[in-house]
């Protein structure tokens, strides 16, 4: 600790940080542009100038940039000194000389860091009377809008895009007042993290193009804390609504999970909630009916029929549990393929019974050696790939301490480290986008990846069964990896469900456990398929094929499918037979898909933005998403439909009415979920007797927005499920960390106001990061190593071992239904190795007919030199591409 005198007032602060983050952390206002807590300091914009004094007697002091100056004990600085104030006013005036002052038509207006800083620095009269420089803008694809004239050249965009996220196609061109940030030519930004430019850019150069489609100022949005639904990582988001439709997803800081960023699938995937495919009313035999009619129908079906329920990995714990309770635990089935089911169970077992604490994304970022087994993270869990990209900087950063350079001093650190990379090893099926920062890569069939993992584990601990007949160079690579992991302070092993192969997951556990014997700081992380795969696995339920059997054998005749397209989880022929055999198929969902089309009864469920629910991420962290806006009648959460049905049926109900009662019931009934009560504050929670407003206090149009329907203002809806109100009235201070609907503090209208919500800059939110971890390791674990070593993969004549290939844009069911993400999704294809292509005399894009597990395909060929010989890659989950359980053998059809 150090004592710092700011304007003659003493503060106890942490030593080692820079003065800017220290001042901001103390809640003081100091303007800045080029600095960002994730990017460090470069001292380029000169906006955070302050005065530093030698001692008490020094009255003149000297001007320094706060972001470039470390805290020193007994240091005396001044933010308010007239010289510093004048300096900052001059800097902002010169930065603004070319700015077009087009706030009124700028998407950033009202949540603009440049506006805030200009006001804070006191620049309010323009003296520059010459022409401003003007630029031509570029079309940067469906996600990001480009308006270069607004640029103040802080360089944050390229520092994020290139240095932080590893993008290559956004650059700074030209010099002086002509600096231009853009691509070499028009075209979509290639990085999967381009959406963050909208938040990183302090002005309106890069803005959210999907928001532009239905633009609303930040102050006019109704917002609520939400959780991303598009992969298993559970990034925290803010979802904003106006006029009954979801209009924007922004980052919601969580120090343990997503930090300051989101991937483009998470940010732009929300458009599906406004899609034409939304189910907006109940249907019986494809005819629209009223709520009463459908309730009567379903209640009768349930009374008469032998009912089973099929849950979903993309539905909340609440909805899944409500269904389980309705049909009975022994009649509740997980709506995932048996392979997915087994993999999820295996992962839960490893994490619960093993000795290793699951690594959060923050832990992965801090890791100084990483091994990835079988995952293409950029496409299956994109934000984890971004975390790995930061991890490779950790080992070289150790040099900084020796050179007496603080870690936040980005300019000096870059100079010293010269792009040096720490150990990252990737064993994957095909090339991944992280290969450019990897120390070594190995591309092989899933079983070979598993064998390789076993070999690494065996190098670490001789009691792990060794792998015989591994090629010499692989054996030495395994040894090299084992050495690098052993030498690390905080190694992390990452694997997951996407290779669809249990042996890969076991191999990763073996490596982590062997390493853990030497180093207790070892981390282990698995990715799963969907946003609540982990929650579903923790809840318990039967396998999907047993549900199929139950109906085929006549043990059941009425099926309730909840928020699940079975065609994504089972083979088309099986699902067809199952749905045809069932006497009654009742589906709850918010979006039309093939299962909905086969249903007799359809009930409109709320999408995540219209629902309250808890989902559990890959780390075992239970997180709540709040309803952003009242659903349009008769849409409601699946769990609310279920309570309505039960009330209709017997007038007793389920024993609970609202979110809280339901959550309490789950906590009591499900031993692995008993802590979910603590995820969010109760509905009765009040601060100073007030609710937490979903709307900023500047919200406008409440009286006018519905005047075309009724001139008298409707009574605002009441939320029985949370301490959040649907209006702008309520407590204006900081809400509890798990219930932050938007970031705003006086003078800080942009997302940069998050600084004021944190314990310390870049640390956890005040009151702790949101979410409750449900899985804690068994430190006394006596679990022994897995010994099931798979056989080496041997290519088969006229066959190809087909594995799923994932795409960030396209493989996820919901996001691809939005326009922007759909534009980035690939066409259907089948990828094969160049040698196999030559053998079969196939050329690029030539159509190949083949059969996988009885499913026929006819797809254009994509030839790869990196996919191992004997393998074929089938894109996973693309719309219109029939699902089949992989990996499996493909047979050529003539």
């Amino acid at each position, binding site marked *: 600790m150090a004592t710092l005198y700011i304007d003659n007032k003493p503060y106890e602060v942490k030593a080692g940080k820079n003065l800017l983050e220290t001042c901001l952390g103390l809640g003081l206002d100091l303007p800045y542009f080029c600095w960002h807590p994730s990017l460090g300091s470069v001292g380029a914009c000169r906006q955070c100038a302050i005065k530093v004094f030698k001692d008490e007697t020094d009255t003149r002091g000297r001007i320094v940039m706060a972001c470039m100056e470390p805290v020193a004990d007994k240091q005396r600085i001044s933010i308010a000194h007239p010289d510093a104030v004048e300096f900052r006013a001059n800097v902002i005036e010169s930065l603004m000389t070319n700015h077009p002052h087009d706030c009124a038509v700028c998407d950033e207006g009202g949540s603009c860091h440049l506006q805030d800083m200009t006001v804070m620095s006191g620049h309010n009269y323009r003296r520059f009377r010459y022409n401003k420089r003007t630029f031509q803008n570029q079309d940067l694809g469906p996600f990001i809008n480009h308006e270069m004239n607004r640029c103040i050249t802080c360089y944050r965009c390229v520092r994020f895009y290139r240095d932080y996220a590893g993008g290559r196609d956004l*650059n700074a*061109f030209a010099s002086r007042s002509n600096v231009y940030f853009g691509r070499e030519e028009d075209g979509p930004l290639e990085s999967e993290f381009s959406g963050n430019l909208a938040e990183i850019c302090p002005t309106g150069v890069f803005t959210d193009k999907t928001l532009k489609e239905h633009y609303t100022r930040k102050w006019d949005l109704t917002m609520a804390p939400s959780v991303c639904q598009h992969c298993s990582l559970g990034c925290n988001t803010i979802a904003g609504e106006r006029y009954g439709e979801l209009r924007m997803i922004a980052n919601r800081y969580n120090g343990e999970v997503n930090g300051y960023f989101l991937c483009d699938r998470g940010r732009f995937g929300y458009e599906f909630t406004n899609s034409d495919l939304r189910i907006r009313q109940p249907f019986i035999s494809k005819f629209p009916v009223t709520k009463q009619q459908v309730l009567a129908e379903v209640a009768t079906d349930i009374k008469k029929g032998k009912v089973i329920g099929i849950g979903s990995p993309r539905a909340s714990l609440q909805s899944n549990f409500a269904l389980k309770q309705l049909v009975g635990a022994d009649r509740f089935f997980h709506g995932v393929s048996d392979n997915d089911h087994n993999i999820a169970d295996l992962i839960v077992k490893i994490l619960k019974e093993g000795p290793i604490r699951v690594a959060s994304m923050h832990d992965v970022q801090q890791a100084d050696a990483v091994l990835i087994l079988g995952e293409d993270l950029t496409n299956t869990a994109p934000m984890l790939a971004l975390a790995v990209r930061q991890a490779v900087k950790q080992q070289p950063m150790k040099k900084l301490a020796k050179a007496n350079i603080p870690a936040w001093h980005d300019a000096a650190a870059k100079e010293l480290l010269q792009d040096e990379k720490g150990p990252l090893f990737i064993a994957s099926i095909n090339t991944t986008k992280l290969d450019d920062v990897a120390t070594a890569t190995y591309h092989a069939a899933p079983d070979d990846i598993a064998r390789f993992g076993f070999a690494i584990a065996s190098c670490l601990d001789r009691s792990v069964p060794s792998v015989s007949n591994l090629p010499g160079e692989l054996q030495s690579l395994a040894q090299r990896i084992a050495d690098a992991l052993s030498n690390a302070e905080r190694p992390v092993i990452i694997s997951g469900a996407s290779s669809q192969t249990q042996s890969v997951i076991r191999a990763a556990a073996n490596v982590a456990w062997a390493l853990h014997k030497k180093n207790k700081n070892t981390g282990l992380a698995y990715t799963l398929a969907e946003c609540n795969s982990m929650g579903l696995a923790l809840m318990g339920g039967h396998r999907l094929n047993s549900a199929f059997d139950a109906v085929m054998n006549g043990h059941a005749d009425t099926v309730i499918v909840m928020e699940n397209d079975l065609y994504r989880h089972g083979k088309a022929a099986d699902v067809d037979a199952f749905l045809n055999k069932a006497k009654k198929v009742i589906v709850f969902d918010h979006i039309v898909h093939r299962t909905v089309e086969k249903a007799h009864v359809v009930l409109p469920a709320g999408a995540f933005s219209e629902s309250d629910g808890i989902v559990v991420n890959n780390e075992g962290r239970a997180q709540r998403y709040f309803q952003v806006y009242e659903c349009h009648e008769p849409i409601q959460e699946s769990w609310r439909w279920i309570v309505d049905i039960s009330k209709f049926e017997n007038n007793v109900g389920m024993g609970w009415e609202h979110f809280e009662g339901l959550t309490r019931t789950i906590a009591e009934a499900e031993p692995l979920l008993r802590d979910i009560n603590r995820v969010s504050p109760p509905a009765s929670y009040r601060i100073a007797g007030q609710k937490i407003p979903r709307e900023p206090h500047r919200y406008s149009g409440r009286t006018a927005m519905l005047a075309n329907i009724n001139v008298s203002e409707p009574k605002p809806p009441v939320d029985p499920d949370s301490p959040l109100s649907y209006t702008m009235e309520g407590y204006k201070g900081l809400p509890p960390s798990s219930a932050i609907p938007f970031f705003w503090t006086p003078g800080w209208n942009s997302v940069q106001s998050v600084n004021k919500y944190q314990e310390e800059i870049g640390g956890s939110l005040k009151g702790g990061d949101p979410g409750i971890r449900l899985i804690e390791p068994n430190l006394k674990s006596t679990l022994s190593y897995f010994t099931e070593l798979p056989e080496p993969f041997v290519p088969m004549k006229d066959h190809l071992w087909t594995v799923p290939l994932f795409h960030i844009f396209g493989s996820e069911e919901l996001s691809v239904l939005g326009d922007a993400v759909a534009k980035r999704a690939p066409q259907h294809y089948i990828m094969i190795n160049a040698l196999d292509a030559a053998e079969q005399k196939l050329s690029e894009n030539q159509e190949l007919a083949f059969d996988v597990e009885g499913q026929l395909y006819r797809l254009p060929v994509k030839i790869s030199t990196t996919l191992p010989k004997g393998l074929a890659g089938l894109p996973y989950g693309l719309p219109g591409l029939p699902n089949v359980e992989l990996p499996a053998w493909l047979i050529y059809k003539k």
Partner: protein
Amino acid sequence: MSLVQKIIKRYPEGRHKSALLPILHVAQAEFGGWLSPETMDYVASILNIKPIEVYEVASFYSMYNLQPVGKCVLEVCQTGPCWLRGSDDIIQYISNKLGIQPGETSADGMFTLKVVECLASCGSAPMMQVGNNFIENLSVEKMDDVLKKLRETHNVPSPDYGSPYPVNKA
């Protein structure tokens, strides 16, 4: 090309991108005094880097011309000392005389006018650079003479366009 290879060899393995600046000078001299997108793409292919990495560097420095230039490139300094000694008038005079704005080339393809920052000859301000030569202590009165002389000496394109890496045309 052997010159290019020699330049690349100066830098350690894996750091060959550092050779970009000198190679761009060579390329500019070789390909008519300016860097077309094709030329820059070619340089990128030599260094095995992305074209965009060449564009960002080439567009930063005023020494690289991204538009075709005339036979004689006038680079008039406009930084403080030269400006105090009347560089504005010199630029204005050339502009009027040749009918071109800074950055443009005269219709006869003879002169290109550029305004540049300090060329480290403040003692003899105002001044300009033409190819590898400084023309110092300029004044509006002298300009007619200077231009006339340049028209004679630079009637053939200068073989190196001011490149610090002279190219010997056989």
